[in-house]
């Protein structure tokens, strides 16, 4: 993948073990922040960054990824399989 940033998640009981933000896709719409301000923030380039990959439960994390209008947030499980976008 081109311009991406990966964040390892090791929250107990979680099926998601990695959050990836595609910085080419991210437009800083900040809809992910609306869903989970504890997980994301915008950086100086107006791109989403993950400040705490373990802040929320799986449902909220999936919702935050789903909310992105450019599908710039990708979620992976422990086997490295992409769980969102499907």
């Amino acid at each position, binding site marked *: 993948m081109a311009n991406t940033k990966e964040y390892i998640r090791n929250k107990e009981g979680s099926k998601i073990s990695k959050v990836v933000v595609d910085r*080419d*896709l991210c437009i800083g*719409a900040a809809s992910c922040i609306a869903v989970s301000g504890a997980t994301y923030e915008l950086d100086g380039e107006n791109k989403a960054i993950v400040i705490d990959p373990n802040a929320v439960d799986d449902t909220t994390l999936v919702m935050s990824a789903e909310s992105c209008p450019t599908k710039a947030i990708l979620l992976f499980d422990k086997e490295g399989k992409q769980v969102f976008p499907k």
Partner: protein
Amino acid sequence: MDKYKYLIVGGGAAGVSAAETIRENDKEGRVGIISDEPYILYSRVMLSKPNFFLGKIPFESVWMKKEDWYKTNNIDFLGGKIAKNFDATAKTLTLTDGTTFAYEKLLLATGVNAREWNVPSAKTADGKTKKGIHYLRTLEDGKGIMEQIKTAKRAITVGGGFISFEMADLLKLAGLETTMLLRESYFWEPILDSASAKMLEDALAKAGVKVIKNAEVAEVLGADSLEGVILKDGTKIQCDMVMCGIGVTYPLEWIKASGVAVQKGILANEFLETNLPDVWTAGDVAEYSDILLEERTIMGNWVNAKEQGRTAALNMMGKKTPFKFVSFYTTSGFGMNIAFVGDASAGPDRVIIPRGSPEINSYARIIAVGKELIGATMINRTVEMNAISKLIENNVDISAKLAELADPNFDLKKLLN
């Protein structure tokens, strides 16, 4: 007559987010979405982004749902259909093709239209918009722009808001000679102050966009296709493309005729309920009571539409939930990041706290009423958007914190503890 437990008018971010929320909570209730566009949910936000237009992002990524998502979730998608009226007593809604549906709960998430350019010569003799003049609301509009941008040489953007800004960025990146016409005396007046605007105007100028202020078009040249414009002061500008980003209009006739109270948009309380029983509203068209800002407001953006769709759906299912959300909007172009948080309009009762400065190319205006913040405009300070949203949401008393708010090096998160 077909009957829906939940009938949604509008297939955009608000409507689909409502349908999704309903389905998460009610697996059985019949859900229908009526959309005047034939397309399933797509990213309206993406339509103005250069990466999308210039093919850096594949076209397919515009689709927000898979084709079969509606079917899999047992949601009827009625695309290319236009609602004509509804009867809140009989609880029926009729389409322009004559079909009538019965409903139990109705959601009006109809969105807004792009305001049309009111220069008479923008239209041909038989009343069509001249070729080369573009608006940006639908995917169809986006396709038209994508097509013309390949061959166009000179473009004008009309308007001093985000559409004009993002389009100018795109046109410039595509190699077109670009002029921006502002009716106002500075960019994004009156939402921004002139100092913030100057930062953006300088960035536009540096990129080679010619910005003409206090400009109004008197005449559009060309018979069927656009050839140029003449301004009221006589200046003639040749162009083969015009992008109009001059605001929105609210298509409310049929809604008003059906008995819904409207003002600028559809009036609603904090539960997004209209004046009629079992009729809700959400998204760009909703003029709702904002309990955080303590005022009636309209917020036209993706994040807000999605959140409102969710809240309206919860209320439609009887889970009384007030809409409580600090809205925000960000955009970027020409190396500048712009963000608006909450209610960013200035007014007589509002105190503006400047943070940073144009000189350091990082400048925010934090807006307070009384002891609390209500909004902010930010240029190249979007990193602080979270903190400011939280200060507004938590009604933090800032009366003794004015110095901290004005200090660009002070970490605003510290005010949250």
